[in-house]
């Protein structure tokens, strides 16, 4: 009996002590978890958005592990609001030291990204010059391009042949093709669930641009408004795939036969070829109106260094090591998972996977019709045009009025950035 009592008493003491410790531990954990692991050398945190292709996360972590001079922790950010998570994190003490993003000038004006000219300069001539231009402000280069991602339409030539359709050259022809290709089971075309992914190609194909060379809004034209009206027609026609379980960047809607034509990126080619063999073709966003020219989005991702990082030099050293020096990893990253065009000419030239078949066609469109990032076109401006797409394509608002509203917002942003 007495032994039992002792046990009982002990248990209570132990429990109380444990609770106290748990409480203390819980408090200690507050603010202590920065995602950095302690260890020898500098600790760096890097942010990546979640790539869809299998093996990408492992690859990024493998490269990081191979680096000996610092401990790298990778945050693999899922969800469709990477930019919001990144922007919010950049303001805090837990900000990443190194992160991937697109070149946007507000990051430079607000002093959030570091000047990387010194690490890029020696190999500058080996980069695609358009990628250098899109990362340069006042002669300084702010990011290292990792991959170039052209985006265009995918279709199946056999399906086109059966329906006796030629590859669309104009937006009217695309809408007509979507109509002919729509059956009870397959929709004619898929432009993403919120259509915003084709906002830039629509502007370019209408002969306009996001901004002029001297940073004035250039997208508010009659041809763009006309294109929006045509897209509204397509949206309401019932020939457009809407609310697909997967979005435009994922090839599933196309490979599973939910849509006959899909706007997607070069990265999806391996998955598409695996599913559909060589029965795949690509074409650029068709002409809008008479003055336009077909266009392709040359997107992509670049590495940036947080200018406010406590380990600025270590972060720069890591970016130089991986994205300048380690060509083997750069090649692996661009070609082993999804297909991307390496921005380094020396790697692109030896990329045999991109030399034949569908990938070669993608590269051709990239070179012939591609529009690269414009560093002056920032997230706030992108969001202003997102609203135009939502209001005048998905809702029935007047395109001209919407474009004018967006122009006002973009103007206000430009004033803040350039004075």
């Amino acid at each position: 009996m007495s032994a039992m009592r002792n046990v009982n008493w002990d248990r209570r003491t132990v429990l109380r002590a444990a609770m106290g410790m748990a409480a203390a531990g819980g408090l200690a954990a507050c603010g202590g978890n920065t995602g950095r692991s302690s260890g020898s050398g500098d600790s760096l945190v890097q942010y990546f958005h979640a790539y869809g292709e299998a093996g990408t996360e492992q690859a990024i972590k493998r490269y990081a592990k191979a680096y000996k001079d610092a401990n790298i922790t990778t945050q693999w950010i899922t969800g469709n609001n990477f930019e919001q998570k990144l922007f919010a994190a950049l303001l805090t003490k837990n900000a990443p030291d190194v992160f991937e993003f697109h070149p946007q000038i507000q990051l430079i004006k607000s002093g959030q990204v570091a000047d990387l000219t010194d690490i890029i300069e020696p190999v500058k001539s080996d980069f695609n010059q358009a990628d250098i231009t899109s990362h340069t402000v006042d002669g300084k280069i702010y990011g290292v391009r990792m991959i170039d991602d052209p985006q265009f339409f995918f279709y199946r030539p056999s399906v086109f042949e059966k329906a006796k359709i030629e590859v669309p050259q104009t937006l009217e022809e695309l809408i007509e093709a979507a109509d002919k290709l729509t059956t009870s089971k397959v929709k004619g075309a898929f432009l993403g669930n919120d259509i915003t992914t084709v906002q830039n190609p629509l502007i370019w194909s209408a002969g306009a641009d996001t901004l002029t060379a001297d940073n004035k809004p250039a997208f508010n034209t009659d041809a763009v408004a006309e294109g929006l009206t045509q897209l509204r027609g397509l949206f309401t026609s019932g020939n457009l795939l809407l609310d697909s379980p997967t979005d435009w960047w994922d090839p599933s809607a196309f490979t599973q036969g939910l849509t006959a034509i899909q706007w997607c990126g070069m990265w999806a080619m391996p998955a598409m070829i695996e599913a559909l063999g060589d029965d795949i073709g690509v074409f650029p966003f068709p002409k809008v109106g008479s003055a336009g020219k077909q266009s392709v989005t040359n997107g992509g991702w670049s590495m940036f260094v947080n200018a406010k990082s406590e380990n600025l030099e270590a972060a720069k050293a890591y970016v130089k090591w991986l994205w300048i020096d380690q060509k083997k990893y750069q090649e692996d990253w661009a070609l082993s998972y999804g297909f991307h065009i390496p921005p380094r000419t020396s790697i692109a030239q030896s990329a045999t996977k991109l030399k034949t078949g569908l990938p070669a066609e993608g590269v051709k469109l990239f070179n012939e019709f591609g529009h690269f990032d414009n560093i002056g076109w920032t997230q706030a401006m992108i969001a202003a045009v997102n609203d135009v797409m939502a209001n005048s394509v998905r809702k029935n608002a007047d395109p001209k009025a919407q474009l004018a509203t967006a122009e006002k917002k973009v103007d206000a942003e430009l004033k803040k950035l350039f004075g």
Partner: protein
Amino acid sequence: MSTTTTRGVASPAPAKVSKDRPRRGLRASSTFNFWLFTGPFLIGLIVFVFVPIGWSLYLSFFEARFTVTPSEFVGLENYRMILSDTDFRNSLVTFTVFAAFIVPTTWAMSLGLALLVNRLRFMRAFFRSVFFLPTAVSYAAAALIWKMSIFNGVRFGLANTVIGWFGVENIAWLGNPDPPWYWLVIVTVRLWLQSGFYMILFLAALQNIPRELYEAAAIDGAKPGWQTFRYITLPQLRATSTAVILLLLIAAYQAFDEFFILLGKATWGMPPLVELYKMALGENQNYGAGSAGALVLTALICLVTLFQGKIMGFGRGEESQ
């Protein structure tokens, strides 16, 4: 027969071992125990609730773009901006529409479920658990299920399959705002998630209504069913109903997850928190205006709660009913 005695009989006898031992340790240091149990919570409350509220108040008087440690004092400019912002005012309209849908439906649904479960003679615990289970699901997960499998726009989505049986064309529930089917998706997901929880509250209240009232009503000739429900059950549930409606309204004010996930880059159907999120954490990162909006919203919630308390008698106590 009062419920207390039944409970006393039903509850298991306390363990014999501890019977002869006064629990001295616990009683002697009650102050220590008080702080042990409330301390962590209190510190959490201060660090994660009061400090941020104070900081918001501070930020709301500054021009705070791309920074949370601003230096440019602008007085009430942020408040002027947020109150004249059409998007913010629209978000209050969106909230009102949402609350008008969700509060009555959840109230009715959870009360209905509670009445059904309360009348069960067997498997009551099973159904109680089944209806309560969705409460444990996260809003984000449920919203994704609603978006990707139940209300997706393709022919094999659950909702489209069902309407397909009746020969109705596929509907893009979320993509096409005209007609605004997105409200159906938003309201049903929240209804599913929160009804079970409020059902438990109603169930507890139902079990607290004295049997004698029903007996007396039966003797006075009240018919079982609607008449008894209308004149006995419903008035007896008044306090719980008031609390439930209040909680539902506050929950509706706080709605964020499902709107954010389901509507994505839409310009419609944005409740206040999504609007403030876009303002503070979106492309503009205007923390000053975002904080001002958050405080305006807090003031609104306080006002509505007080007003509702006034008309429905929340917190007035049992005797005043």
